């Protein structure tokens, strides 16, 4: 398996450069090829579960060469990326027929997937930056893919803030290299344990938190997300909200904070505060929206707050010397919520794309009564809404329950109260979606609306089934032990990461 690690980066990159060769005539061949590539990645990701190891690129030893590291957290993220990109690619097969230059779209899509897989696997911090930039640049272009007024404006805004974030990360990388003399994350971590944090490294940590925070759209840095995510084509919105902000933001942040620098009480508190701010502000801003996709984008900010809160709470308990069982429970809640959110938020964006394609509008006040016209979209949308609002037995309920239990056990009663309160706000905003989009009276001009066909439906039903079944990930012990527990263990181990990697 370890020998196959480069395939996670090579398959998407090669297909990204082959796809534009198919011009207008080979559109269906290009679509087929891109779908095959995502299926291959999905198979590889499933095969990588439970494995761990280091791949040394070009046989250079780990200290000086480029390494790809597969551990529990990486394989969890690979699985999430592959599942969402598989569904989004299936959905694009039909949805993107309304745009010109489909082959270029597919190429950018694969480039983004390749960049994200690289971020997740990279074992050295400069390559993490390189892959981060590959994924980001592809996503800037995809946000502006429609080339309309709003798309271009959103793309520019995203690009400016995204570039500033990348430069912060590069500055952080330079400072870390200057202070520790290494770029490999395991060796950096070892050097930091030896010398402790000096001013330069502290500044680098701050730069990383701001840079990755901007990529993750945590609340003080969230300005670009509500413009960028709705402006992209629906499958790309699903990818952006579903996996891009998680991989480039939360994964990279937790890897650097937990495994490289080591969690401390101030950073733990910082993550908790960022998480709570995102949860509350995102939820309040979302309720007032009338643009369907914009509402979902704000709710992404709110849901990412849960993930960061869970991880931060776990980190704070570890750093404060509290009960490790509750720390691992909090991290488990955060990571499980990350997985859940990837699935149901991408499903929500796909349903919004289906609605937009059939009705030609995203304005909720101009819709209504679509329940009869689009039964499958409606059913999948209800499942996703119930899941995000935390109604049992759907997946979102379990992750929120774990977070609440962890917060109460660690005596953070007010945090538990806020989690439940934001969950109620989420319920309200998705009831609003159901009420204005699918119930009520059908407007005159939408009488001819038809349900979408084929691949779009398959993609939505696939994700809806996952939404229903995902609760099993924590309820069935063998699934939990093979998928979620190794990922939690990576964050729990913290700076022991360096010793683990050097032994592999």
């Amino acid at each position: 398996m370890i020998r196959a690690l480069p395939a996670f980066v090579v398959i998407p990159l090669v297909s990204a450069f082959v796809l534009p060769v198919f011009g207008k005539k080979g559109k269906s061949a290009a679509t087929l090829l891109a779908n095959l590539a995502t299926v291959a990645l999905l198979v590889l990701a499933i095969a990588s579960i439970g494995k761990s190891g280091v791949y040394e690129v070009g046989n250079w030893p780990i200290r000086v060469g480029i390494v790809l590291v597969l551990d529990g957290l990486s394989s969890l993220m690979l699985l999430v990326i592959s599942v969402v990109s598989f569904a989004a690619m299936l959905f694009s097969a039909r949805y993107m027929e309304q745009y010109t230059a489909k082959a270029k779209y597919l190429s950018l899509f694969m480039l983004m997937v390749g960049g994200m897989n690289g971020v997740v696997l990279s074992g050295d911090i400069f390559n993490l930056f390189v892959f981060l930039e590959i994924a980001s640049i592809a996503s800037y272009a995809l946000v502006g893919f429609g080339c309309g007024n709003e798309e271009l404006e959103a793309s520019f805004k995203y690009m400016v803030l995204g570039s500033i974030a990348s430069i912060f990360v590069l500055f952080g990388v330079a400072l870390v290299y200057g202070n520790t003399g290494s770029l490999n994350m395991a060796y950096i971590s070892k050097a930091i344990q030896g010398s402790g944090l000096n001013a330069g490294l502290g500044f680098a940590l701050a730069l990383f938190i701001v840079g990755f925070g901007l990529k993750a759209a945590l609340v003080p840095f969230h300005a670009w997300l509500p413009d960028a995510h709705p402006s992209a084509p629906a499958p790309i919105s699903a990818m952006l909200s579903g996996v891009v902000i998680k991989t480039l933001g939360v994964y990279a942040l937790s890897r650097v904070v937990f495994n490289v620098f080591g969690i401390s009480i101030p950073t733990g508190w910082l993550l908790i505060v960022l998480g709570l701010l995102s949860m509350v502000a995102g939820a309040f801003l979302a309720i007032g929206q009338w643009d369907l996709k914009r509402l979902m984008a704000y709710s992404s900010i709110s849901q990412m707050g849960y993930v960061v809160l869970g991880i931060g709470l776990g980190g704070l308990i570890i750093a404060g010397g509290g009960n490790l069982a509750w720390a691992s429970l909090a991290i488990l809640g955060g990571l499980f919520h990350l997985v859940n959110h990837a699935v149901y938020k991408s499903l929500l964006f796909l349903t919004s794309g289906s609605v937009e394609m059939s009705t030609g509008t995203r304005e909720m006040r101009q819709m209504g009564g679509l329940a009869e016209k689009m039964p499958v979209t409606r059913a999948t949308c209800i499942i996703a809404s119930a899941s995000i609002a935390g109604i049992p037995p759907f997946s979102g309920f379990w992750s929120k329950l774990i977070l609440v239990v962890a917060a109460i056990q660690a005596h953070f009663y007010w945090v538990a109260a806020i989690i439940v309160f934001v969950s109620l706000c989420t319920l309200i905003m998705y009831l609003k979606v159901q009420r204005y989009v699918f119930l009520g009276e059908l407007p005159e001009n939408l009488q001819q609306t038809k349900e979408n066909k084929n691949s779009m439906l398959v993609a939505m039903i696939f994700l809806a089934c996952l939404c229903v079944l995902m609760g099993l990930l924590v309820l069935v012990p063998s699934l939990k032990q093979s998928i979620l527990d190794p990922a939690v263990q990576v964050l729990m181990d913290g700076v022991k990461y360096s010793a683990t990697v050097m032994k592999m």
Partner: protein
Amino acid sequence: MPYALCFLLFMIGLYCAVVKKNMVKIVIGIMVMEYAVNLFLIMLGYRTGGTAPIVDKTYLESGTGQIAASFINTSVDPLPQALVLTAIVISLGSLALMISICTRTYGKYGTFDITEIRRLKG
């Protein structure tokens, strides 16, 4: 001192990117930041009076074939140069994309002023 100037350049770029209203000036600000970081990386590997980091026969110790200590003590660090090359290529890519988005936006709105390009709100 050179590090402080480099940081000053970084802050000038950040100021330009955050405060300016003209899209092209924002792009220039971002690029100034990028170059400040590149300069910083290059300075990390710099050594006054250092030699090029290329090992030739004169630097190999006769007999053992080991690299001589004199080489390690005088050569500059080559790694930051490789990093800077990569970073420059990446920033070239994002610069090209940014400028093309700017020109397309100018075609749509007829202005570079971001205070007038405000369709998206809320």
